[in-house]
Structure formats: structure tokens, C-alpha cells
């Protein structure tokens, strides 16, 4: 029995050391991406190409999801607010929910699922098929040529996609509340305009999306670059990207929200 306990404690210790080592390795990898971003910035075409794959191809899921989330918010918001005779505030509710929370968080989760997983799978497969090693043998640094452009494309795409998600959500809320239910259009827009604050709501929302963009893309490229070069290794890395990104988004959202919106009405 004591031997089992020793083995158990040893196992826990081993996992903790492994996790700390991996975290340190990830930090070092992140620093390398930043250090080697010169090529991507000088040859911006590399980033533009990746913007298409990470940004443009993710737009469909972002726009459709944003529309439905906004429609649901409009419906649920109207149902609750009308009990207090405040149904004209439904526009404010939809806009604040989207700009402050749902826009960055849901767009982040969708971005991690669609673009993050694709980045991990692509880099992981490039590694498994020796493309990264071949690049290194050609004296071309894979971090500068493959990883950095994907990282910056993700960082640029995420805030833009989140903005589209929120805009589409507001439109969805408008469709349900104004067009379908018949809430006064003037009140819908004017209340939204008077309550939503540019500095506290929109800028803070943008800051959140930028932080999420860095986190998701850094996780995606790290997992892809360090995936074991097997089918199982790449699939495991892809799953880890989605799971880790989702947890990091939710955790960071709580931390950022607690700093940004403390004491704000």
C-alpha cells in the first residue's frame, strides 16, 4: 500500500514538472515567434495569404452564428423585459451582451474551433510529412516562414471576426425585436446609442478580442509545431488546441471582465 502511494505521488509530481516544463517551453516558443516575425512583416503577402485561410474562410460560421445568437438574445430579452414594461431596452440588452461578452467569447470559441484547429492540423501535418524539416534543410526557418505568418494572420483576424459577429448579432436582434415582434424602431436604436459607451464597452470588447486572438493563435501554432509526427499525434494536438483555447478564453474573459467592468454601470 505505501508503495502505491509513493507511485501515485511520484506520478502527480511528474505531471506537475511536465506541465511546468511545457509552459516554459511554450513561453520560449512564443518569444521565438515574436523575434522571428520580421520576415512576415517585411513580406506582408505571406500574412495576407494566411488571412484568407484563417479569416475569410471563418466568416461564414461567424456571421451565421452571430445572426442566430442576436436573434435569440432579442427573443429572450423581449420576453423578460416586457414583464417590466421595458421592452424598448431590448436593443441595449442585445448590444451590451454582444459587445461586452458574447461577441468576444463566442467568436473566440468559434475561431478556435474553425481556424485554430485548422492551423494546428496544417502545421502538424507539415511536420509529420517532413515539410518543416525539409524547409530547415533549405536554410529557411520554419518558425519565420510557416508559424509567424499564421500567428499574425490569426491575431489580425480575430478582432475583425468578433466585430462582424457583434454587428450581425445586433442585426439579428433588430430582426426579431423590431421586424418580427414590433418594438419601436426609434427606441431600439436610440436607447442602444445612449447606453453603449464607446470607451468602456466597445474598446474593452476590442481589447478582449485582441487578447483572445493572441491566445488562440499562439496555442494553435504551438500545438501544431510540437505535435508528435503521427496521425494520432496530429489529431491529439488538434483536440488540445480546441479544448485549451476554450478554457483559456473563458478564464481570460473572467480576468479581463473583472478588471475592465468593475464599477461600470
Amino acid at each position, binding site marked *: 500500500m505505501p508503495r502505491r502511494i509513493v507511485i501515485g505521488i511520484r506520478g502527480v509530481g511528474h505531471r506537475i514538472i511536465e506541465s511546468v516544463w511545457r509552459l516554459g517551453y511554450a513561453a520560449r516558443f512564443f518569444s521565438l515567434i515574436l523575434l522571428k516575425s520580421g520576415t512576415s512583416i517585411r513580406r506582408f503577402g505571406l500574412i495576407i495569404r494566411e488571412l484568407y485561410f484563417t479569416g475569410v474562410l471563418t466568416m461564414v460560421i461567424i456571421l451565421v452564428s452571430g445572426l442566430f445568437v442576436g436573434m435569440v438574445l432579442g427573443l429572450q430579452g423581449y420576453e423578460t423585459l416586457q414583464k417590466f414594461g421595458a421592452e424598448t431596452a431590448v436593443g441595449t440588452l442585445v448590444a451590451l451582451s454582444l459587445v461586452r461578452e458574447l461577441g468576444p467569447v463566442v467568436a473566440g470559441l468559434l475561431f478556435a474551433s474553425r481556424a485554430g484547429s485548422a492551423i494546428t492540423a*496544417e502545421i502538424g*501535418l*507539415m511536420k509529420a*510529412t*517532413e*515539410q518543416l*524539416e*525539409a*524547409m*530547415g*534543410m*533549405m*536554410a*529557411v*526557418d520554419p518558425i519565420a*516562414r510557416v508559424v509567424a505568418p499564421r500567428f499574425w494572420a490569426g491575431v489580425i483576424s480575430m478582432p475583425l471576426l468578433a466585430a462582424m459577429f457583434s454587428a450581425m448579432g445586433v442585426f439579428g436582434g433588430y430582426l426579431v425585436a423590431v421586424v418580427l415582434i414590433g418594438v419601436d424602431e426609434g427606441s431600439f436604436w436610440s436607447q442602444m446609442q445612449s447606453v453603449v459607451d464607446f470607451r468602456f464597452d466597445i474598446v474593452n470588447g476590442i481589447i478582449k478580442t485582441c487578447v483572445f486572438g493572441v491566445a488562440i493563435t499562439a496555442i494553435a501554432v504551438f500545438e501544431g509545431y510540437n505535435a508528435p509526427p503521427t496521425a494520432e499525434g496530429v489529431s491529439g494536438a488538434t483536440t488540445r488546441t480546441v479544448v485549451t483555447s476554450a478554457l483559456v478564453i473563458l478564464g481570460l474573459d473572467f480576468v479581463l471582465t473583472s478588471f475592465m467592468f468593475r464599477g461600470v454601470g
Partner: protein
Amino acid sequence: MTTNPLVEIKDLNFSYDERAILKGINMTMPRGKVIAIMGGSGCGKTTLLRLIGGVVSPSSGYVRVDDQIVHELSRDKLFSLRRKMSMLFQFGALFTDLSVFDNVAFQMREHTDLPESVIRDLVFMKLHAVGLRGAHNLMPAELSGGMARRVALARSIALDPMLVMYDEPFAGLDPISLSVIGKLIRRLTDALGMTSILVTHDVHQSLEIVDYVYFISEGVIAAHGTPSEVRGSVSPFVHQFIHSEVDGPVPFHYPAEKYATDLNLENRIA
């Protein structure tokens, strides 16, 4: 023109963790020759190529390429040396998101400031040399195994390197593709004045095109010589390898417990 060997390997040892892969390897590879490194699977042949390319560092000893000790080079100097060498990977390692044309043009665009019109001409010349000028628009997924290997060959000679390393260039090819790749390696080596190092299992194809052969077994050089010397060798290992014999110094079975022990027969008899 220097007469020093292009690649010199001296007392080279390499281990993964505690497991010794290469033990006291000494090799000399003169310029302009095709040299084959042969041996069973997992004997350390590919590791040797990775050591020459500076992907991994030796535990002791050294690899000297073009008068530079590879593992002592700074990253910039290593990359500068790698611009003069190239490697053809076992399955080509073509960039799957780039067309055949762009794969061959990759190094030219990365390392030179040549205008696109010149790059276009050079790419077509390289593809013509491997017989695939007409396939320049295809994507790697549209190529057969043999064609992919030929595109990779065109890519590996894109910048006229002094040294090309081939990792199992004949693996998985039909007899025609195999012969085509073999002849191309010989022809390109002679035409471009480069040195080729071939890691392969394919004895018959290799002996037809190479100038010198090293056999590696269990991490050491078991035999070496010219193709005619190797064909006439009385070394049991070389004989077994060349004649594809099951019995010989290379065991069929991976080291294991006694068969009877694994089948639990000893306990039953007792």
C-alpha cells in the same frame, strides 16, 4: 579547385538518450562522387544524413563539410552551409500547399533576388531535367509517388548545390520509376559536378550508379568499397545483404526472451 574531400566523418558517435545509434564512424566522401550508405532498417543511416545536415549534433567526433565542422557552426553559418547542400526526403516532402512550379521555385524566391522571369526559366530548366516540365501546374496531391520524387529532385538541385543527400530515394517505387530516379541521380551528379550521398536499401539499383558504398550494421561500418569490390566481398554481412538472405549475421528476430518463456511452456513443463 580544392582536392579535400567534401564530407569527412571522424570517430563519430551518436546516441538517443542512452541508446547508441552510431559508434565510431569514419567516412570520407570525395567531391563529384555518388556514395551509397546501406544497411538494415533502423541501423542509423538516416541519422547519419541528419548529422551531416546539422539537424542533430554528435555525442562525440565530428562531421566536416566543405572544411567546416558542422556541429560547431553558429546558426547563421549552418544556414549558410545548408544553402550549398540539399536533401531529398523519403517521400519527397513537397510543400502540399504549393504547386510543382512553386515548390521548385521556393528556394530561389527565399534566397535570391532573381526577377520572376529568370526564376520561371530556371524552374522550367530544372523540371525539364527530371522530365516534368509539363507537370508544372499540378499540385503535389495530383502526382504519383515517382513523379513526386522527381519534383523533389528538381527542387533539391534548384540552387545547384555542392552536396545532395537522398534518403531512401527508391523506396516504394515501381521498377520503371526506380530506374528513372537512379539514372537521374547519376546524370545530375555528373552534369552539375555535385556530390551525392545515397541512403538506401536497394542494393541492385544502387550498385549500378554509385562510386563507393558503405555498409552500416548495428551502428558501425561493417564493410565498404567500390561496387565491384562489394560484389566480390566475402564478408558474411555484405553477402547476406546483397543476396537478400534470411540467415546470416543480421538476425531475423528482434532480441526477445526465450520463445518457450513467452509461451509460458517452461512453467508447464516444470
